[in-house]
């Protein structure tokens, strides 16, 4: 593996805007993701967090603005092309192959890094490198006891872990994680936070999350969005102290646990 520079800026979104007809879902949003840092996107429902992730991952083309990865303009790349350069994502609603085993889900993700479609007479299950990679990523995401399970029958939390394993298997340098803790019990949440902490040093992570305990446990930078606009962006202490954020989003202490 090549030497990793921490604090290396990997993904930058420069004033990205997305309009749906008359609705401006994101306006002039700036995001910068560095290796070794977790950047959290906060905001009430409908603030435009998922739209923002969708633009970064290539699922949704921006109406305006520019996205660069390691200095190269990637605004015009499709989701598949962005995955190949090193941007991986998980989804707010679990998005897996429910009829496949856990291993096959992650193996397919690993296989994507060395696609040899013309080798139609080789056997997928004999590609040791992909299997080894898949097993390692499953273990890293903490799912090693469920390797041969059909993924559709896993608990909700385990399926979220599976999504993380799939992102890992694509060697993603940038991980865009859309509410990985949503619907998890406290034990599962705590385990996932541990996983995130373990992944953090070697990757740049963008996290959309509502669980405030988790957010403040892992965040290096927090960007608060309201109505498609960035309200404030900075280190956790600054966000906690911000009067604007208090008023617009956090409101009372209760809404820390949305």
């Amino acid at each position: 593996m090549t030497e990793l520079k921490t604090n290396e800026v990997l993904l930058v979104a420069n004033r990205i805007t997305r309009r749906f007809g008359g609705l401006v879902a994101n306006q002039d949003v700036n995001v910068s993701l560095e290796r070794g840092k977790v950047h959290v996107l906060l905001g009430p429902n409908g603030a435009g967090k998922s739209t923002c992730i969708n633009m970064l991952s290539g699922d949704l083309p921006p109406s305006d603005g520019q996205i660069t990865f390691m200095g190269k303009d990637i605004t015009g790349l499709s989701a598949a092309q962005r995955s190949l350069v090193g941007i991986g994502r998980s989804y707010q609603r679990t998005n897996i192959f429910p009829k496949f085993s856990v291993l096959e889900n992650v193996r397919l993700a690993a296989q994507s890094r060395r696609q040899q479609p013309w080798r139609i007479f080789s056997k997928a299950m004999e590609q040791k490198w992909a299997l080894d990679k898949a097993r390692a990523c499953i273990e890293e995401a903490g799912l090693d006891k469920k390797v041969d399970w059909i993924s559709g029958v896993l608990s909700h939390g385990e399926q979220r872990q599976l999504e993380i394993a799939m992102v890992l298997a694509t060697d993603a340098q940038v991980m865009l994680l859309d509410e990985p803790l949503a619907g998890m019990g406290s034990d599962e949440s705590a385990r996932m936070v541990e996983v995130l902490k373990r992944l953090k040093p070697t990757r740049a992570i963008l996290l959309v999350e509502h669980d405030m305990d988790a957010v403040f446990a892992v965040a290096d930078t927090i960007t608060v969005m309201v109505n498609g606009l960035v309200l404030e962006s900075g280190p956790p202490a600054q966000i906690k102290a911000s009067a604007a954020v208090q008023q617009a989003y956090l409101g009372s202490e209760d809404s820390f646990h949305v």
Partner: protein
Amino acid sequence: MNTHTSLILKLAGLAILACVPLSGESFYVELIAKTLVLAIFAMSLDLLVGFTGLVSFGHAAYFGVAAYAVAQLSPKYEAASLWYVLPASVGLSALAALVVGLFVLRTKGIYFIMVTLAFAQLAFFVFHDTPLGGGSDGIYLNVKPTAEIAGWIPFELDNPAHLYYFILAMLVAVYLFLGRILQSPFGRVLVGIKSNEHRMQAMGYRTFRYKLAAFTLAGGLGGIAGFLYAVVFGFVTPELLSWHQSGNVLLMVILGGMGNLVGVIAGAFVFTGMQEVFGSWTKHWQLVMGGVIVAAVLFLPGGLAAIPGRIKRSLQGGAAND
């Protein structure tokens, strides 16, 4: 069913099929030969419908292109070489599928169904109304291709038994080929696309290319069936490309069980069997057939391929807790 039993059953089925020409009943030999050809055709469509999740309603086009290609590439009163007309006609089918695929694979769902149908209708009228096809009467293939290699003739397609075994060998070859492909990384990607195409894209698979490869391959394999059909019957008509033909093969796949090659072969047998039996009862056989298919879809959602599992479960019935 474990792999041993399943292999034994498959070999037994093959042995029974291999015995058919020994009966000497030329009507049945030709009927089963035709069914085997349709089984190859149905397997080629299953690559799209059952494995990649692409419901093509125009698969007869590639069947027909190859059938017309044999008729057109063969000299009028001489035998063409099998080793030239077979690859050429299959290649033309694959090429046609490649070109059509470039357009139709940009659509999804119901639009894909309609656009594949539209292209097949286009092909139908090309052969129906242009000098390429010989009108609604079609073209005769007066002399069947010869398998001669430098003076040596390994088998003769003129001989019904030889032709039958040639078709059976092609069926086995296509079956093994598809089975192998589905185990390959390429095949896994196709199955992944069927399950969740969006997720495949998010993982870095440019799914359009994979789907185009599958569509081309399915067109070529469908072409093998079209080639054999023309050789068996000795003439081709535009009906081979009609939407009825596309619908029939789709029904064989659904009846047999999408995504199960043996099931699909069985589907072709049950379908042609019903055509024969109901056809001998009444001229309104399509009415009876329609009823049977509706019942099959309602009561046997996995098709014929789901029957072994059901039998197994009902045998275990009382004892097992599931």
